[in-house]
């Protein structure tokens, strides 16, 4: 890191808004590498480990596959499909999806040419066919996990049944089907087929449970899955939360409170030391119950504790406001939401919530 000046752009700080806009940063946390004039050299998206991060930083220093370098190469020779595809991959990695789609559309206009090209993928010596990768990437960047239109992955798995991306395409399609409302029978069939094909894929049970909670189908099996999660990882708050959602869908509110209520908090959250992680867990718990208007006393207690630890967290004030709103304590709801807004003045959602609470107060008084 000695070749860099590390500059922190925290939300709310002086340069934050300008820098985030200038470098088109979406999603946090994120890193941008710029030169002394402020010109972008590279952007770093998500990464799996500090080693991956430093590898990416080292490559940026060498100018290898940086955003600026790839853009320059493409501008010099836009007909070079290899460069175009590498730049599209880069755009996808830094969430510039429109740019990625535009490049991929152009690349896929020449299928015979792109089929003869192989691009690096995975380890240093691995390559993948350009056409297959372009199709997969196009499906990925245009993917929306809800809606009525079946994503391109549906065509991809038919065209490339032996692709290294087959499982990812299939599982991503299952993610779409868990939200699919047009044909629940078809959605259920697809998710079950995915689980049968890929029994070791750990995302698929999540999608099964999500689908079950949304539709009310296969709730007994969903209950078994969540019990399995709890048994395997008894400190995982999300396992309990999922279980509560299944019970609420079953109409078993008392069981939901039992599995993810005050006793859960006492056992797994309140006993932890007062730090940021605990505050986050408390807020996650409180936020789960707040919009549902259930278990509010316990949610209020947890929310207040989260704010005791992290009084600077605007989102946690927002959670408490929702709880008061559901309790019909409108004045306190407005007061706490104003606190959230004070800490994050650019958050329109907070402004909108204050207006909505005021209207509700007027209606009920």
């Amino acid at each position, binding site marked *: 890191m000695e070749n860099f*000046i*590390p*500059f922190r752009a925290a939300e709310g700080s002086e340069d934050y808004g300008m820098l985030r806009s200038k470098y088109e940063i979406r999603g946090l946390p*994120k890193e941008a590498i710029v030169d*002394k004039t402020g010109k972008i050299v590279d952007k770093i998206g998500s990464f799996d480990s*500090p080693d991956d991060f430093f590898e990416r930083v080292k490559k940026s220093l060498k100018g290898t596959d940086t955003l600026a370098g790839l853009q320059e190469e493409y501008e010099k020779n836009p007909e070079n499909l290899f460069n175009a595809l590498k730049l599209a991959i880069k755009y996808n990695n830094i969430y510039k999806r429109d740019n990625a789609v535009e490049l991929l559309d152009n690349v896929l206009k020449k299928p015979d040419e792109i089929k003869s090209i192989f691009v690096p993928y995975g380890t240093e010596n691995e390559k993948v066919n350009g056409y297959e990768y372009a199709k997969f990437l196009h499906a990925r960047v245009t993917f929306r996990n809800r809606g009525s239109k079946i994503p391109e992955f549906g065509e991809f798995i038919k065209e490339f049944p032996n692709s290294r991306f087959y499982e990812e395409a299939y599982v991503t399609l299952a993610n779409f089907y868990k939200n699919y409302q047009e044909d629940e029978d078809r959605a259920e069939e697809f998710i079950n087929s995915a689980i049968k094909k890929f029994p070791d894929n750990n995302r698929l049970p999540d999608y099964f449970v999500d689908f079950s909670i949304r539709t009310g189908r296969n709730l007994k099996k969903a209950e078994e899955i969540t019990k399995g999660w709890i048994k395997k990882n008894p400190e995982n708050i999300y396992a309990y939360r999922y279980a509560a959602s299944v019970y609420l869908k079953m109409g078993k509110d008392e069981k939901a409170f039992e599995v993810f209520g005050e006793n859960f908090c006492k056992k797994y959250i309140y006993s932890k030391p007062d730090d940021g992680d605990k505050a986050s867990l408390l807020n*996650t718990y409180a936020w789960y119950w707040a919009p549902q208007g259930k278990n509010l006393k316990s949610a209020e207690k947890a929310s207040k504790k989260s704010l005791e630890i992290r009084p600077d967290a605007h*989102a946690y004030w927002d959670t408490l406001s929702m709880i008061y709103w559901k309790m019909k304590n409108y004045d306190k709801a407005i007061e706490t939401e104003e606190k959230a807004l004070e800490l994050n003045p650019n958050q329109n959602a907070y402004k909108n919530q204050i207006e909505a609470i005021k209207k509700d107060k007027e209606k009920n008084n």
Partner: protein
Amino acid sequence: MKKKFLSFASILLLITAVFANGTEWFKGSFDEAKAKAAKEGKLIIIHFFSNG
């Protein structure tokens, strides 16, 4: 915004781990950071994050 999942906490811990070894964040404005980068022949790595 509101939903601070453990996956976000994991990413935050990862960032903290990456920058944990005595990293001294630049104290000053971005313009001042650029001036320092010009003087020392370095790049700037901007770390964007949220407290909320």
